[in-house]
C-alpha cells in the first residue's frame, strides 16, 4: 500500500538508532535519582519514630546494594536528622536482621512486593518509587508528574506502623487511603503537627 518512501524512513530510523547506541551508557547517578534521594532526605525531618523503634542513635536506611539508588543515597549517609545520624545499610529485610528505620526500594528493584507483604516491625518507614506502591500498602511513594518529583503518602499504613507524619508534609503530598474502616487514624495524624 505504501510507496518505497517507506524504505527511506526505515533507513533514517536505523541511522538514529545507530547514533543512540553508539553512545556509551553512563554509569553515573541520574539527576532523577539525586532529586529523589534529596527529597527522601528532606522529608525525614517530618517523620517521628516511636520510642521503642529507636535502638541506637542512628536512623538506618536500608537499600539493596544492587539497587540503582544505592549510590544516590550514599550522599546522605552520615547526615543528621533530628540530631540522629543517617546510616546507609546495604541489605534490606527480609534478607537481613539489621534494624532498619527506613526501607527503600526502587522501581528497578524487585523487592517492593516482599517489603509490603512482609510483616513489618513497628516503626519501619517504607519508601519506594514503584507504581501504585502507596495504593498497595506502602507508606511513601515517589512519583514523577510533569517531569517533577512528587510523593503520595498512605497515612494509614504509616499509622499502623506507629509512625507520626507532620501535617505540613501531608499537605504537600497526594494522600492515598487504603483502609477507610479506621478513620480515627487519619484524624490523629492530621492533629499531630
Amino acid at each position, binding site marked *: 500500500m505504501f510507496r518505497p518512501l517507506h524504505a527511506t524512513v526505515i533507513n533514517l*530510523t536505523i541511522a538514529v538508532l545507530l547514533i543512540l547506541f553508539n553512545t556509551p551508557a553512563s554509569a553515573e*547517578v541520574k539527576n532523577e535519582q539525586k532529586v529523589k534521594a534529596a527529597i527522601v532526605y528532606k522529608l525525614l525531618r517530618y517523620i517521628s519514630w516511636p520510642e521503642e523503634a529507636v535502638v541506637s542513635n542512628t536512623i538506618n536506611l536500608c537499600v539493596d546494594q544492587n539497587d540503582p539508588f544505592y549510590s544516590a543515597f550514599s550522599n546522605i549517609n552520615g547526615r543528621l536528622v533530628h540530631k540522629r545520624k543517617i546510616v546507609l545499610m546495604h541489605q534490606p529485610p527480609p534478607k537481613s536482621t539489621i534494624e532498619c528505620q527506613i526501607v527503600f526500594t526502587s522501581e528497578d528493584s524487585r523487592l517492593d512486593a516482599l517489603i509490603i507483604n512482609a510483616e513489618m516491625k513497628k516503626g519501619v518507614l517504607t519508601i519506594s518509587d514503584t507504581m501504585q506502591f502507596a495504593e498497595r500498602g506502602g507508606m511513601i511513594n515517589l512519583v514523577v508528574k510533569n517531569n517533577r518529583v512528587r510523593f503520595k503518602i498512605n497515612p494509614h499504613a504509616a499509622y499502623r506502623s506507629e509512625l507520626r507524619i507532620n501535617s505540613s508534609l501531608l499537605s504537600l503530598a497526594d494522600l492515598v487511603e487504603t483502609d477507610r474502616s479506621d478513620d480515627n487514624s487519619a484524624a490523629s495524624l492530621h492533629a499531630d503537627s
Partner: protein
Amino acid sequence: MRFLWRDRLARFVQTIVCVSCCLTGSLAASSSMKFDDLADLSLEELMSIDISTVTEKAQNALSRASASYTISREDIEHSGRRTIPEILRMAPGVHVGRVDNNKWTVSLRGFNGRFSNNYLVLLDGRTMYSRSIPGINWQQIDTIIEDIEKIDVIRGPGASLWGSNAVNGVINIMTRSARETHGLQLALSSGSATNNETQFRYGMKLGNSTHLRLYGKHTEHDAFEDINGQSAHDENRRTLLGFRSDRQPDDKSSLTISGEYTQSHPDDLFASVNFETLELQVAPTKNKIDTFHLRTHWTKRLNDKNQVGLQIYYDREERDTTLLVLERDTIDIDLKQHLSLGKTHSWVWGFGYRFSQDDLSNTNLLTAVPNDLNVKVAQAFVQDQIQVTPNLSALLGVKVEDNSFSDIEIQPSLKFSLTLGKAHLTWLSVAKAVRTPTRVGTQVRIDIPSLLLEPGSELNVFPLPLLAELAGNSTLESEELIAYELGHQWQLSENFNIDLAIFYNDYSKLNGTEFSDLLCQPGNVLFANDPACLGSARYLETPLLFNNSVSGHTLGGELVIDKQMTARLSSEFNISYIKYELASTSIGFLNELADVRNPELLTNLKINYRVDERWSLDFWLRHVGKVEGFAALGPGFDSYTALDLRAAMQVNPFLQLEIVGANLTDSGHLEGASELGEVESQPIPRSLRATIKLLF
C-alpha cells in the same frame, strides 16, 4: 525524478548524521546536578525541579513573556471533553465553532473557518498544517485524550521559530512520555447525541531504561438531528492504533519513537450545484480518510550549555472525500541546537527540510492542475536571547525559508521583557510572519455551492442564475503580517495570577478574490465579447480569481485571571476581544469574510472543586458573542451561553466514574459554518455522557 530527490534526501540525512556524530564525539563536560546543592534546597523547591533530561532550557522570564496559555492534563480532565477542538474552547483568543458532529472551525485571533490556515498545529512535533489542502483538518487531530501531557496555545506570530503560516499563533499538543503511562488503562464512554468510545492503553517497561505504550481507540459518533428533527447524516466512525516508546539511557540523551495508524469515516450532508436543474442539492455522502505516521526524536545534552535535538518523521494520508480525493506522503527532518555563550547570550539555531508528494484527483467540484505535485520547504533559523541587565532581556530571532509556492521568506522577530520585582513581568514584541500560498490558492478550481446566486438577488444583477467558481492564481503571493504585542503578567500571590495581552495585527496582501471573465453557459461564451449570449444561456459562470487585494488590521486583547482559592477549589476567568478593520481593493466575493466570522467577545468561567479524595465537581460557563452574517453565506449566529457540568468519582485507585453534561443551557444552537458552504451547519445539542475508566 523521484529517485533524484531521494538521493538528495539521503545525502542530506548523511550530512546531518555526521554533524550530530561530530558534536556528540567532541563533548566532555558533564552536566550533573550536585547533590550538596540539592540538599540545600527546601522540599518545595526540590519538588519543582524539572528532572527531565533534555527538555527545553530552564524557564526564565523571557520564556514566560508571551501571550501563551497552557492547557494541562488536569485542565483536560476537568473539562470532561473528549475531542481536542472541544478542549480548546477554554483557551483565550481561540474561537471554536462546531459545524456538525464531525467538523469544527477553530481560529486564533480571528479569521475563523473550516479551512482556517493562518496558524500552526503541532502534535508531538509533527505539523498538522497541510500546504496541499488549505490549512488544518481538525477531524484528524486526535489521540488518547488521557495521554495528552499539555496543549500550549501560543497567540501571536511564531514564524521566527516555527516557520511560515504561524501567523496568528501556534497550538502545540504534546503527549506523555511512555515512562509515565505504565499499566493497563481501559475507558468506555457513551452519551446522548455525542459518541460511543472505547479505548485502551497498555504501558510497560522494557529493560532498564526503555518504556513502551501501545494504544487504540474506536469512536462511533451518531448523527445529529437537523433543525427539522431529521438525521443530519454526519456520523463518524474512527479507529486509531498507535505506539510510543521512550528510551533514556542516561541523564543526557533520550530517544522517542512513535507511530500511529488511523482510519475514519466522517460522513457529510453535502451541498453541491446540480447543473441540470441549477439548484443546490443536498445529499448524504460517505467519506474515508486513512493516515499513518512514524516519528523519531532524539536529543542529547552535551553539557549544561549545549544541547542537540534531531527529529525525523514520515506521514501518509489517503483521503477519499466528496470535496477532496488526495494521497500525500511527507517526510520531515529537523535539527536544533541550544547553545549558551557566556552569561548573557543563549542561542538556538536549527534547520530543516520537508518534502511532500501529493496527488490531488479531480472531483465533481474540484479540478487541480497539475494533479501531482512535489512540495518542498527548506528552512533555517537562529534566535539569540540576551540578558541585558538582570531585569531586562531581549530576544532576537529570524527564520529564512524557501518553499515551493513563494519566494524566499524572511521572518524576523524582536521581543523585550522586563521584570519588576517578583510579581510583575511586562513584555513588548514586534514580529513579521507570512502565510504562503497553497495549492488551493494557486492551482485548483472549486465550485462554491454557497455562491449559486439567484437572478435578482443582492449580488446578482443578471436575469440568469450566476455561479461562482474559486479559481487558483499562479501569481498569488504570500499574505503578510506585522504584529505588535504588549503584555503584562501580575502574580498577586502564589495562587493568584493575572495575564493581559494586547495586540495590533497589521495585515497586507491577504487573499481576496476578483471577478474574472463572465461566461455564458453552456457554451463557454465570453459575455464581454457577446453580450447577446444572455438570451440563449441557461446560467452565467464567473471564475473568482484569488488575489492579494485585502489589507487592514485587527485589534484586540485577552485577559486571564486565575485563582486557586483553596487546595481544593480553583477558578479561572478569561475574556477575549477582537475588532476588525479590513478592506479590499478588488470587487469579488468573500473579501470581507474575516469580518463576519468571529464574535467580538468570548468569555470563559471555570470552577473546579475537589470535594474530597473521591469526588470532584466542575463547572464551565462560556459566552460566545454574536457572529454577523454575510449575504452569500447566509445569516450569522446568535450569541449563546453554554454551561457544562461534570462530576467524577474515584471509586478506588483502579476505577473512576465520570458524568458530563454539556451545552446544558439550550436545546440546540448553531455555532460554526464552512466558508465554502459545502456542508450544512447543524444545531449543537445538549448532551449527557458517562465514562468509566479502569487503571490496572
